C-alpha cells in the first residue's frame, strides 16, 4: 500500500500554489511515495518525553537596539519586480469580480 496517493499530491500542490501537470502528478506521487517509504523507520524511534529542536543553537530573545536605519532605495527594490506602477508592485486582481 502506498503512503501517499496521487490525489493527496494534487491537494498538496494546491496548498503550495503549484499548477502541476498530470504527468508531474504521476511522477511526483511515485517518487514521494518511495522517499516516504524509505523514511518509515523514523516513526519507530522512541521519542517519548523528548523535546523537539527547531534550531541548531539555542538562542532566545535576540534583541537589537530600536534605532532607525536607512533602508534600500524604493527604486532599487522595485527594479527587481516583474511589474510595477506608481512606486508599487502591480499585482493581478485579487478579488473575483463576479462575486
Amino acid at each position: 500500500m502506498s503512503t501517499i496517493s496521487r490525489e493527496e499530491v494534487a491537494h498538496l500542490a494546491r496548498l503550495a500554489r503549484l499548477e502541476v501537470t498530470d504527468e508531474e502528478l504521476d511522477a511526483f506521487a511515485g517518487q514521494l511515495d518511495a522517499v516516504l517509504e524509505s523514511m518509515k523507520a523514523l516513526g519507530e524511534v522512541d521519542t517519548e518525553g523528548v523535546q523537539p529542536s527547531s534550531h541548531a543553537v539555542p538562542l532566545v530573545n535576540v534583541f537589537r537596539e530600536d534605532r532607525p536605519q536607512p533602508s534600500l532605495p524604493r527604486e532599487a527594490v522595485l527594479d527587481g519586480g516583474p511589474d510595477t506602477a506608481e512606486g508599487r508592485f502591480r499585482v493581478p486582481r485579487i478579488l473575483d469580480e463576479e462575486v
Partner: protein
Amino acid sequence: MSDRIIDKAAAELAADIREGRLTSVEVTTAFLDRIDAVDGTVGAFLHVDREGALAAAREADAAVAAGESVSPLAGVPIAVKDVVVTKGLPTTAASKILEGWIPPYDATIVERVKAARMPILGKTNLDEFAMGSSTEFSAYGRTANPWDTGRIPGGSGGGSAAAVAAKMAPLAIGTDTGGSIRQPSAVTGTFGAKPTYGSNSRYGVIAFSSSLDTPGPVSRNALDAALLHEVISGHDPRDSTAVDAPVPPVAEAARLGATGDLSGVTLGVVTELTAGSDAAEPGVVEAYRAGIDQLVKLGAQIREVSCPSFVHALAAYYLIAPAEASSNLARYDGVRYGLRAGDDGERGLEEVMSLTREVGFGPEVKRRILLGTYALSAGYIDRFYGQAQKVRTLVKRDFEAAFEQVDALVSPTTPFTAFKFGEHSEDLYRMYLADLYTVPANLYGGPGVSVPVGLAEGLPVGFQVMGPVMGDDIAYRVAAALESTQEPLLADTAPEIEGK
C-alpha cells in the same frame, strides 16, 4: 614548484601581492583567463564579472601600494555560489524563477569579502536553491567534475568546488545545509568547511532551510579555507540567528595542524557512520581507513563512539529541510522579484502565482516543496515534522555525549566518489544517500570539514572531521594534520582540463 599563478594556493598569492612580487591585477587576470580557457568544458560559472573583478583588483593593488593595513587575503580573487546575493550582479539560485534578478544589496559575507579587498570573479552553478547532491538540478545546465567530465561535481555547490578544482579560482564561497560544501569538496579533491551554525551570517544567503543553512569556504587546502573563514565569520546584527561569540582561531589551528603533531588529541570513530555501512563504496572505506592510520601515526588516540540516532539523521533531515523550504520558497510569488507567468489581464493573483511557480521551479524544488508541505500538513505534522525535530534533539544529545569523550569525530565525507551524470536521477533516495555522513553535523549545528584523503579508482575521496559547536578550530587542526600526510591532489596530480 610551478611558477604558474593558478597553481598557487591563496595564502601564497596573498603574500606575493603584499610583498610586491605579484599584483592583484596579474593574479585576477590569470584566473579570469583560466575561466575563459576551460569553463566551456567545466561549466562552473553562471556569470563571470571580468570588469568588476579587475576594478576590485586595481583597488586592492592601490591599497597595498599605499601601505594600508590589508586583510590576509587582500587581492586574492574568489568565486561566489549563486545562492548568495551580490549587489549589481545577477543572482539566480540556479532557478528560472529568479532569472534576470539583480539584487539591490550585498550579503553580509559578500560585504566582508569586499572589505577584505578580494575581487569577485563571478557566480557559480548549483542545484536549484541548493537542493541536490550533483548540481544536475540547476536550471542553467550541468557542471562537470574536472577529474572526469562525464561525472558530477557534487552538489549543491558543484560550481564552487569545480571552480577551485579546475584552478579557475583559488577560493570560493559555498553554503552547506546538509553537505553542500563538504560533499562537492570530497568528490572534487578540494577542501571544504561547514562552520558552526550561526557563526557566519545568513543575511543575503537565499534561504533554503533556515535552521540548517551555513555559508562557508571552499579552497585548495586547510589554511586557505581557514583564512577565508576568518574573513567572512563573525556576529551580524542583521541575522537574528547569528551567534554573538568570538570566531574560533581557525587559521592558527590550521597552522598548528600542519606541523603534523596530534599528540593529546582523541578522535572518535562513529560506529553508525562506518561499521556495516553498506552504503559506502569499498574504495572510499579503504581511503578513509588509510587516513585513520595516518592520524594514529601523528599521535592521535582513536576511540570508537556510538551515536545511535545518526541512523535516523538522514530521514529527519529530509523532512526538516523540505518543511522549512516549503515555507521559505513561498516568497517566490511572481510579485516582488524575477519571473511572473500567465498574467494575461484575465487571470487572478492566485492563478498567476501558481502558474509562475509551475514554470519557475524545477522538478526537485517542486518535489521538496510538496514533501515539506506534506510533512507540515494537518494530520501529519506530529508524525513527520514533529518526530523529525525530536530525532534532531537525539542527534544533538549524541554529539554532546560524544564530545565528552573525544575532541573531534571522524568519518568519510560521503559514501561514494563522483558518480556519472544521470546515474542517480531516477532513484532519489540513492541521491539523498550522498548526504548520509554530512547531515548529522547540520542537525546538531557543529562544524564539519572535508579534507582530501587520496583517490579511489582515480577519483578523489573526502575525509570528514566534525567538532563541537564553536569548536571549528579542532576540526581544522585535525584536517590540516591529515593534509600534511597527503600528496597534494591538485598540485601534482591535478586534473588538466584544457580549453577547446
